């Protein structure tokens, strides 16, 4: 491209790169900050000396967590919830998305089911009826309660469906001629052709399960059933935002609190996401675009 390099345009470029770089840094800051706090010296962390670099070095926070059975139990609950929940949700979405990607001619119930889905997506009963239903199913303190409570993710399902629609029908036709049934076509032709959207949905679903804290809070009768985010919400955030305290009381509390230990818990809760993010990141832009734009 032809472009004259004037002084103004050079200045603009420098300003632009600096601004975007700064924005990107603020987005990485929470992770870096939690990490710095967690490895900093306890007194330095508590007195607010840690801002952009660790102060001192100590692994005591992590050693303390090693002995915290409750933390590990919560971690395990979250792992189970995320893995089981993601597998279950993906299976349901893939199985349901395939027939719904057909025309009304090919699948007679298609439009009725679509309208039902739409209704459930835009209208819900609210928190109290939802909670009472969960109680009536005896899903309190149960791992399946934590999985099923979120209801069918209709919007994601529609994205999967739209992606399936974009797959050339010749492929399916060829398989059908060769004698493949609908299940075989779905799992051996359609699914392998849909890696971007499936990877995207695995990311969204697993992050959704991992990050959910509220249902974990109201569907548990005691802290030994908490998933990790609920544990952190209750043990870390709730005490942090403890209100109605005078500045002196706040000071006292921050001396008693253990910021580096809290930060270590928060950092560990970030880790699984940081691990899967780079692998799936390259898919999600294509996955989302192809699915969201009608095929």
């Amino acid at each position, binding site marked *: 491209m032809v472009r004259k390099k004037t002084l103004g345009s050079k200045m603009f470029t420098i300003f632009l790169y600096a601004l975007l770089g700064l924005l990107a840094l603020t987005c990485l800051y929470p992770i870096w900050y939690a990490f710095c706090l967690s490895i900093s010296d306890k007194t330095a962390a508590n007195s607010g000396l840690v801002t952009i670099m660790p102060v001192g070095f100590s692994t005591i926070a992590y050693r303390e967590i090693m002995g915290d059975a409750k933390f590990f139990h919560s971690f395990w609950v979250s792992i189970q919830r995320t893995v089981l929940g993601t597998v279950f949700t993906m299976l349901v979405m893939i199985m349901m998305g*395939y027939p719904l990607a057909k025309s009304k001619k090919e699948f007679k119930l298609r439009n009725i089911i679509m309208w039902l889905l739409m209704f459930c997506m835009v209208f819900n009963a609210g928190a*109290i009826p939802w909670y009472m239903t969960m109680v009536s199913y005896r899903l309190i303190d149960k791992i399946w309660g934590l999985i099923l409570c979120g209801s069918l993710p209709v919007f994601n399902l529609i994205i999967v469906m739209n992606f399936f629609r974009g797959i050339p029908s010749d492929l399916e036709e060829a398989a059908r001629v060769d004698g493949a049934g*609908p299940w075989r076509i779905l799992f051996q032709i359609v699914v392998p052709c849909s890696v971007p959207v499936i990877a995207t949905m695995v990311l969204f679903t697993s992050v959704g399960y991992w990050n959910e804290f509220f249902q974990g809070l109201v569907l548990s009768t005691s802290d030994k059933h908490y998933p990790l985010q609920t544990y952190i919400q209750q043990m870390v955030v709730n005490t942090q935002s403890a209100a109605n305290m005078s500045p002196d009381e706040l000071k006292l509390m921050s001396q008693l609190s253990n910021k580096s230990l809290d*930060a270590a818990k928060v950092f560990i809760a970030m880790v699984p996401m940081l691990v899967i993010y780079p692998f799936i990141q390259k898919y999600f832009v294509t996955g989302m*675009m192809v699915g969201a734009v009608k095929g």
Partner: protein
Amino acid sequence: MKPKRHLKLQTHYFIMTLPGLLWLFFFSIVPLRGIVMAFENYNPGLGLWKSPFVGLENFKYLFSLGDAKRVIINTIIIAGSKIILNILVPLTFALLLNEVRNLKYKKLVQTAVYLPHFLSWVILASVLLNVFSLDGIVNQIMHLMGKESVIWFSESKYFRQLVIGTDVWKEFGFNAVIYLAALTGIDPTLYEAAAIDGCSRWKQILHITLPGIAGTIILMAVLGLGNALNAGFDQVFNLYNPMVYSTGDILDTWVYRIGLVNLQFSLATTAGLFKSVISFFMIVISYWAAYKFADYKIF
């Protein structure tokens, strides 16, 4: 195709949708019966169908409460500002990023700005409450400028702005994805022609880029309407405290407190139903408008 085989295929298709339909039935449809609580004086001892029916009394009572008015106003202010800024900021960001010619740098920035979207409000709240605490980095900077230290999230006059600002910060990168995708759809020869004609960067944005993605912008604006009462439960719940209820309490957090903490089931269901009905109409209108003005069909 023989008729018998056709029937069998239909059955297979139906079986495929069955797990999803059951999930939908038991966890989205069955809870709807709980809505009757909004029209009765619910008594757990009597159960859902035997509690005394009171008609619209709960609604009258709800709207007579000062708290209800306050939380509705807070909800609309917070949600409305988020809708507007969550379009403008990501759009500006996408336009700026589009001016970056170094692809490696562009990719690096993108990878970083998508990250906060994937972190939960629990995690971010724990960091934000530290950053904005009495001895946090924000107050240290304010101190250098000679300003007084403030516990930011405990000040009702700052709370809304902080909630709106931190939400925009969390989501701007992710929300920009759709604009960035729309930008790639613009014919690059247009820019070449404009550059040869001596068009500045700014003029190119004004006359080529913006018209090129106008459809996407309208679409996002219209679809945003459906969130008019979604001020963000997870965020507010993790950041607020009783000192900021006057400006920061929203419908969802209020429903949680009166319903699941104070156990006023009927009142909480009524408030929840009010939100659901308004949201329902907003979403229907927004989808209709998106179809009408942006030719968007969800299915």
